[in-house]
């Protein structure tokens, strides 16, 4: 794959995320190794892999929070290594490794991020998000007093505060009960449908990936070992679900490409 020079004009046909030969080496550990892929606008792409497969590192490099050892990342046509501030207002993320100030109320936290993202009518936006994510009764409670499921919904509200064109989600339903996890997935689906955003979702939950993703990129030890739609992967491996495909790949029984 070759990444074109960053476009100055809006090009709706261009991929939302383009990654080329992305590599991250920590001392002697190769966390991500020559990973290349692109994510189309309006699509949901899943990064699937076990612990230490390189999902979080890949997402971190796309966000510009982790510097790659080599390779290129473009988001919405902008080189993230050189000009990431040009595009930060148009993207957002959610990660279990990140939290929000505990003593601020949910409303205060969302207000601060609304202002940081330069949203003029942030109060209306917070009201809409509160309604959509069932946060209305939580708005005036300190964020630190919320349950894990409630915190995840608040984190999702923060991730959607600027109606991002590119949304990066790192294990968005980790540690949630099945009901809340299902609810969060439904909302992600709805956001993609209504906004046309590109969503890159890292997960090791096969059901989640199967349900949400148009395309699945499977990572193992930092390398891509599978890249296809869920249906194609199932057909290629002659399996009935992605979990079996994942186990085949994780244990080196077969290779998808």
């Amino acid at each position: 794959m070759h990444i074109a020079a960053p476009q100055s004009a809006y090009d709706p046909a261009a991929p939302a995320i383009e990654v080329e030969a992305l590599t991250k080496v920590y001392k002697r550990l190769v966390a991500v190794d020559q990973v290349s892929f692109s994510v189309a606008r309006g699509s949901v792409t899943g990064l699937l892999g076990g612990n230490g497969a390189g999902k979080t590192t890949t997402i971190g490099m796309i966000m510009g929070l982790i510097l790659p050892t080599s390779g290129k990342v473009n988001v919405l046509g902008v080189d993230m290594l050189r000009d990431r501030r040009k595009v930060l207002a148009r993207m957002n993320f959610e990660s279990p490794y990140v939290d929000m100030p505990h003593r601020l109320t949910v409303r205060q936290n969302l207000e601060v991020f609304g202002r940081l993202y330069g949203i003029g009518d942030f109060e209306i936006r917070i009201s809409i998000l509160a309604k959509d994510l069932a946060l209305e009764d939580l708005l005036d409670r300190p964020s630190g007093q919320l349950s894990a499921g409630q915190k995840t919904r608040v984190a999702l509200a923060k991730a959607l505060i600027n109606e991002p064109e590119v949304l990066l989600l790192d294990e968005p339903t980790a540690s949630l009960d099945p009901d809340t996890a299902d609810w969060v997935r439904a909302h992600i689906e709805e956001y993609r449908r209504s906004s046309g955003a590109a969503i890159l979702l890292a997960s090791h939950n096969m059901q989640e990936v199967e349900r949400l993703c148009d395309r699945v990129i499977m990572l193992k030890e930092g390398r891509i070992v599978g890249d296809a739609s869920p249906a194609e992967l199932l057909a290629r491996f002659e399996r009935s679900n992605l979990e079996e495909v994942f186990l085949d790949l994780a244990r080196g029984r077969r290779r998808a490409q």
Partner: protein
Amino acid sequence: MNRAAPQRFSLCRVGAMLRRYLYLLRSSLPRILDLIYWPLVQMLTWGFLQTYLAKASAGGPSVGRLGLAAGALIGAMLLWDILFRGQLGFSVSFLEEMWSRNVANLMMSPLSIGEFILALMAMSIIRLSIGFLPVTFLAILFFGFNLWGLGVAVGFFFANLIVTGWAIGLFCSGVVLRYGLAAESLVWTIMFLMQPLACVFYPASVLPKPLQAFAWILPPTYVFEGLRALLIHHTFHADLMGEAFVLNMILFGAAVLAFRRMLQDARRAGSLLQTGE
């Protein structure tokens, strides 16, 4: 949706960060009291020492000079608090982001490093003012020492000390960003390394010669010498303030470069996403 241009410097984003820190501050009465408690304890300790020295020297040949020198002690303590609390006000606001694992959220938002630093500087002044202003008035009430009576010199002293505090605070924040909360103790202790070298309570001439050379590299040394000159000899040395200002610009510039370097190192090490121990 109405959005500000993300790349231009935005006072709105600085204001958003200030709002975040003020929400935090007002949510905790103990934290507000803590801002007043230590400056008050320090002022009382040094104020009583001043009283003791004045009484002990009464009737002796050096009464006048010792009395004035004792006045310089409480004055120096109040100015030391600007330096120390200024640095803490900056660094603690930054630590709040580390403690709440919010750094990645901020780094992913359109907030620029310059806007972030400006918000931390403004918050440092706010936190300092909460503790410092009441204590200066209590010093007048309890010990008859009026810092504000020094006139415009107070402004020069304040400006120089607060910039040094910001520079040290920024450097410490960079270290914490790079090495995690394991390096947090640096924030609370680094200024005490400066206290003997910056000659807060005694003239630089007291130090051994090699240390004197080092002391005059530090901007606060000029301020504390300037304070003593003003209190004892009634002379305001603008030249000392000018030299302190130049050194402060160098120090602050170096701190910005160090912070940027450590931020890059943190991005290289992948630690921004997992801020903590």
